[in-house]
């Protein structure tokens, strides 16, 4: 049996598909967990996408909290004895999976990009050394706990004829003395860099927030999306975090990736190395980004960008 949980609904559908795939090899079934909601349509949705069972679990909390949700998962596992636990690699999911693995005295692999059974053992692949390598590891303990990021696997198509069980459960969790004081929604631009075919990204080479407009103009002409390096989103907060590309941000694989005023540190490359064509614009001829680029222009972005935007506009008309 494979147990699946993510606090991200879309991610959940992808994980259920993978759970079905893995459980086929183990000749077992996929159980989805949802926490603290009365919304049965959600459970139905998961069933239509492949879940054999959905546990609707009430913990008495109204939002995710790592310690308590770990406890709840542990209690569910005591009862169901699943061999594999798949958790969505959101920040919440990662802290849940890790703590859970400690409690269950078992192995855990974060951010798997592949998961399969080989020689009777659950085997995982994950990116290590900032994108320089892929580690293939296997579990010698049970249950195997893994996390899988969004968009690694495709969900199964919705099938209304699929049947599954919905089981409601109250779980008494141990309460920890920490508490959530406030939850602030961050403004997001509803940008989806992961699906973008063309991305124009900006880095610290830009002197002020207003100048980002130069990137947005080029992106618009290319019918693409704006992206950025970590400092632009995390330190300077000039763009929301959904633009952030790299090891700790979004992983993208567009047809065309244009990096402007980005030095090309390995943690940035880790997020865009699967792009088809990479272009770099940087005033420093020694910038690392040129090593990871197909085409580069050495020059001041303030001069290059307006000219490039114009030239592209002409070419495309």
């Amino acid at each position, binding site marked *: 049996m494979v147990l699946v949980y993510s606090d991200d609904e879309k991610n959940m559908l992808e994980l259920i598909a993978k759970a079905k795939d893995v459980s086929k090899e183990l000749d077992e079934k996929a159980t989805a967990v949802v926490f603290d909601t009365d919304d049965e349509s959600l459970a139905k949705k998961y069933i239509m996408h492949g879940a054999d069972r959905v546990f609707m679990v009430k913990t008495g909390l109204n939002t995710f909290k790592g310690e308590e949700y770990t406890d709840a998962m542990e209690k569910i596992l005591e009862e169901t004895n699943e061999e594999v636990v798949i958790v969505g690699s959101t920040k919440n999911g990662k*802290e849940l999976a890790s703590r859970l693995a400690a409690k269950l005295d078992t192995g855990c692999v974060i951010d798997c990009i592949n998961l399969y059974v080989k020689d009777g053992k659950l085997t995982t692949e994950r990116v290590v050394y900032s994108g320089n390598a892929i*580690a293939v590891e296997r579990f010698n303990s049970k249950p195997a706990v893994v996390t899988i990021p969004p968009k690694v696997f495709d969900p199964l198509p919705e099938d209304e004829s699929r049947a599954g069980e919905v089981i409601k459960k109250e779980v008494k969790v141990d309460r920890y003395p920490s508490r959530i004081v406030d939850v602030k929604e961050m403004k997001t631009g509803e940008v989806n860099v992961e699906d973008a075919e063309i991305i124009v990204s900006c880095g610290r080479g830009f002197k002020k927030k207003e100048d980002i407009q130069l990137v947005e103009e080029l992106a618009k002409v290319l019918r693409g999306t704006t992206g950025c390096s970590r400092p632009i989103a995390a330190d300077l907060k000039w763009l929301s*975090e959904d633009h952030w590309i790299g*090891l700790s941000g979004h992983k993208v694989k567009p047809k065309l990736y244009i990096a402007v005023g980005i030095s090309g540190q390995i943690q940035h490359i880790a997020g865009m190395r699967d792009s088809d*064509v990479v272009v770099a614009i940087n005033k420093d001829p020694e910038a690392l980004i040129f090593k990871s680029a197909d*085409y580069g222009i050495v020059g001041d972005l303030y001069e290059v960008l307006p*000219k490039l935007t114009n030239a592209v506009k002409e070419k495309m008309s």
Partner: protein
Amino acid sequence: MNIVVCAKQVIDVSEIKVDPSTKKPVLQGVPLKISDIDKNAVEEAIRIKEKHGGKVTVLTVSSSDAKERVKELLAMGADEAVIVSAPENADYDVVSKLLAAAIKKIGDYDIVLGGEASIDLFSGQMGPRLAGLLGIPQITYARKVDAEKDKVVAERDVGDVVVTMESPYPVLITVTKEINEPRLPSLMQILASANKPINEWSMESLGVKELTPKMETVEVKGVSMERKNIVYQDDVDEAVEKLVDSLAKEGVLR
């Protein structure tokens, strides 16, 4: 306020070369350093100590000699270091148990600090694992920490939401890279730190019996990235023209 900072010695990932024939990363001879974000954790610990007094102990589990690197953290302002020698194939389970055993031996602690993720493996697994073993609350991805007398208030950066958490002590907190700017020790501080204690503890001295890793590494595969590396350095107008022509040929301008 007594603080234990978990800091990991890692290979400098930006110095990894790829063997052109096997396409595998060459890990031998790559320089070692303290994982970047762990320095943010040390910095945060020192700031809390400056406010409340107490002691900052840096703790590392390492299978290679970590003394030189740990000295940098003492120079920054940590008071004492503990190095636990780990077996060669230590996985997260093994290392977390050694960290937990060492923290219990250190004893009196209010905060355990670590990085949101290590620069080589980038899991964000160790912090919550350790909190689970110690049975204490955890606050991960903290981008702001306010340590008060009997509780800590921290902002967790969860992407599209920021969650403010509050916890009494003891608590484990992992910090993001943006939380602060780690200080660079002066020559004076480097010299003055020479006498600070570095304790080297073995597994046996921690009373930890043999630990069997839960994970087994089957293989470390290379990932190659082939790029054309065509760079236009000449006149900007000409460069732009050539670039647009190339992009049109690549079929990406549509």
